[in-house]
């Protein structure tokens, strides 16, 4: 699998780091939706990012911890930024990607502990073939992040919580706006909140 110099590469890297301009989210998600290369890039960067945070990468317990980490990730409501580490792993990416590819190949076939083969703990056994961002006009809530299934040949890194919240937020806002009396004083203007990438100051526990 070659990631190469796909134009999305830098943007996906920024997305993984939580540094992507919110206005570019649609473009990147479109690419992730349609194209295999960006999706592979996304997955690879996540693995690299995780690997760089985990210095004991080659220790025997890594795959178990990795699976646990993926399972736990959805409950992290605001993934932290890791600006200091970014430059480091970007620089190492050429060398590290080979190792990562090998790791992915292996991980992809390794059953996560306590689950059916190829299914992450925390993922329902329903037949969602891959992480999907097809949202209904209603609210998808914070749920979609739980729907990560790992196909035997394709490990999918969970989409960042913050991004899912942004999308769901717009759906909630639209559903709310339909009934808000503010419209009777301001017409359509308040609806601008429902189609924008809002500046969300973050989930706070």
């Amino acid at each position: 699998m070659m990631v190469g110099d796909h134009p999305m590469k830098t943007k996906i890297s920024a997305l993984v780091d939580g540094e992507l301009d919110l206005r570019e989210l649609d473009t990147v998600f479109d690419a992730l939706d349609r194209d295999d290369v960006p999706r592979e890039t996304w997955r690879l960067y996540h693995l690299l990012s995780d690997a760089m945070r985990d210095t004991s990468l080659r220790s025997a317990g890594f795959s178990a911890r990795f699976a646990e980490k993926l399972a736990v990730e959805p409950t992290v409501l605001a993934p932290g930024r890791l600006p200091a580490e970014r430059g480091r792993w970007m620089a190492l990416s050429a060398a590290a990607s080979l190792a990562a590819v090998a790791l992915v190949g292996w991980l992809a076939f390794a059953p996560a502990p306590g689950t059916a083969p190829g299914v992450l703990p925390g993922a329902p056994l329903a037949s969602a073939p891959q992480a999907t961002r097809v949202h209904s006009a209603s609210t998808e809530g914070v749920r979609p992040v739980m729907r990560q299934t790992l196909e035997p040949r394709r490990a999918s890194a969970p989409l960042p919580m913050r991004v899912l919240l942004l999308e769901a937020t717009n759906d909630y806002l639209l559903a709310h706006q339909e009934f808000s009396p503010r419209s009777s004083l301001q017409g359509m203007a308040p609806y601008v909140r429902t189609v924008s990438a809002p500046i969300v100051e973050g989930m706070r526990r």
Partner: protein
Amino acid sequence: MNGAALGARVLALSLAWTAGCASAQTMPEARALLNRVYEATQTLSYTGTFVFQQGQRNETSRVTRRASAAGDVERLEVLDGSPREIVRTKDGVRCYLPQARTLKIGHGGGARGFPALLPARMDALLQHYTVRLGPMDRVADRACKTLTMEPKDDFRYGYALCADAESGMLLRAITLNEANVPVEQFTFTRLVIGDVHAEAVEPRYATRSWRIEEASVRPADLAAEGWRIESNLPGFQKIVEVVRESGARHRIGQIVYSDGLAAVSVFVESAEGRREPLSSGAVNVGGINIYVREVGDHVVTVVGETPAASVRRVADHVRYQRPQ
């Protein structure tokens, strides 16, 4: 501090709030102006450009309204960043998101009855806000009348408005928090009142091959489904109770409360399929606050044009008991 100095300070503070208004207690006139804004918003044809400001973000949009016998149509186009568009007709709301190639359709949930909400609830509204006329100002090269709505408690935000002297259209609307700091602001930079052609409210996108997201909305009785939901905010009365359904499995209950101006929505949905407990949390989107928590295998999301403490208060009081 002697009595006179204290009195002077109090006077100065109140003058600061009312922007030096000499006739701070002209409630009937202020009320009349609010009604005029309402009438203008419901009846006029216009096209204009406004800036939406929230935190560090500034976004310019064009809004067009065409009143006609066949039914009024309104269109909102975001002019900065990725193009987005919303068209509202008597049949509901359609959101065009060309980059995601997605059309979101909302049915307005019987929104026909809602424009009447404000005048009908003016008396109730004035129990929770002190409305005062301020001095004349100028926005988008038009003379406008300032109007402040000061909340009588901390459960709601305050507003500083400016209404076009000629038409009554709201040219500026600032939402203020309890510290009197703006949390979001709408300001027209251009407004033209009068004839609007039909093409001006036509969406520019053909949506063939787009993903369509649509939910049906119908009245519901969430109490019968085991929910105990109350506004727990003074003056916020229930205005609607519905269920939104899309697909076979997605079903979301929604109850909306309003004090006549601000609204709070409570969304409840099943957390089925989730194995991890959901952490509760708060999200701020300018003048809107959101609070999420889990209640008995369900996710409760409260969205309100109110301070964060108010949406949390509503969310914290939601109870669920599975029907026998």
